[in-house]
């Protein structure tokens, strides 16, 4: 992901994208908001970097905060927001730049279950509505299946590679919570889980022996 967004050069091979580098956005595991800027200033930041004038940027920031259910929270500093709210601000910050490809590195790992389910639902809806491609890295198999069209299994590091491609046959538009009860969900879960267990067991045989 760091190679795709250009934070570091690839160790081997090349990165090929059919979108411009400026059309790629990334959401990190940590929300990484500027603690000394209010929520709306944080969201407006990327827009200002892209030469939008400040008043317009702030207006758009307010719109995005509202779309993520945070109207009225614009003047709060990150310290005075909950973990889920900070995550939403970080999302607004990235989506405001209208990316065509969104990279997400375990973005919801630090949230508790209910907050997480709700934010995932909102993200799925926004992403479908805005027609954004998403590359999501996750350890959560249910999250992977309910959100994705394709799942690629990454082998045990340090020289991890893609081992298999599992298409997800659940149709869109899709509700991530509803997807869990789709008839295709359970068989796919079992299949990937088996391969995943094999993969994990492969790397840590000693641990498995316990």
């Amino acid at each position, binding site marked *: 992901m760091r190679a795709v967004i250009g*934070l570091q050069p690839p160790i081997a091979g090349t990165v090929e994208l059919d979108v411009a580098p400026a059309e790629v956005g990334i959401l990190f595991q940590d929300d*990484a908001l*500027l603690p*000394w*800027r209010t929520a709306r200033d944080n969201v407006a930041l990327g827009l200002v970097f892209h030469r939008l004038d400040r008043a317009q940027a702030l207006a758009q920031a307010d719109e995005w905060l509202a779309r993520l259910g945070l109207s009225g929270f614009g003047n709060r500093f990150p310290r005075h927001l909950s973990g889920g709210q900070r995550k939403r601000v970080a999302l607004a910050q990235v989506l405001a730049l209208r990316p065509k490809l969104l990279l997400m590195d375990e973005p919801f790992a630090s949230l508790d279950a209910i907050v997480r389910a709700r934010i995932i639902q909102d993200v799925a809806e926004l992403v479908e509505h805005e027609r954004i491609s998403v590359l999501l890295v996750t350890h959560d198999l249910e999250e992977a299946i309910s959100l994705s069209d394709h799942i690629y299994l990454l082998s045990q590091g340090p020289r991890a590679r893609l081992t298999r491609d599992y298409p997800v046959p659940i149709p869109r538009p899709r509700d991530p919570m509803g997807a869990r009860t789709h008839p295709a969900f359970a068989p796919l879960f079992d299949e990937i889980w088996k391969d995943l267990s094999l993969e994990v067991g492969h790397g840590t045989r000693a641990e498995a022996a316990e």
Partner: protein
Amino acid sequence: MTTPAARWVWLRQLAAFVVVLAVWEVAGRAGLLNPLYVPAPSQIGAALAESFSDGRIWPHLEATFTAALGGLALGIAVGIVLGVIAALVPVVAELVEPVMTLLNAIPRVILAPLFVIWLGIGLASKVALSFILVAVLIFFTVFSGIRQVDRKLVERIITLGGDRWALVRHVYLPSVAAWILSNLKVAVGFAFTGACVGEFVAATRGLGYLLSFAQSTYNSALMFAIIFLILAVVLLIFAAAGQLEKYLLRWN
């Protein structure tokens, strides 16, 4: 959280101060203290009041203030600029850091005589001494502060499309602001040290000059008066610095 006990701390401190003053005064009047060395508080107060009432003190106060605040402002500005550039441009760091380390290692007041030769006995040599004391302190505050900046914030700004200037403005400066502010009190102390020491060495005006004049005439009441005056002035500036810190770090 202020407990009732903590709320009255300042009152207890004030009470202790008054008691010490009273004991001091009584001891002085009882002849237990030689007024040549330790004059009683009332004598010090009289000396202070006299220097204000005949207006003699004003040019001295003005000279020291100008030198200290001038050196402070210049020192902070240059310290920040050099610190930021050195932290971001390795070639500059290679050149500047050893010089700063050297200047940091020596007691910088030993430069005072040199500044007098270079800049004369006027204001400039005092400003220079204050400046060098403050600038080195602020340089290291900024230089090491930027190196400890949260990498995640840096990457966030880069991936949002921010350039180098955006990093300085939105990440580096706000990050080191807290460090600079926490060192501001030390810097104020340094600035007045520079001004007063400069005036000891060679001057025609200033509180430092007045102190060394009082010393040469064995006027310990005046010496104490000036020491307390400098104390009061610095406390006043500390209070202002505290307010500034509160405002700039309101996000915390």
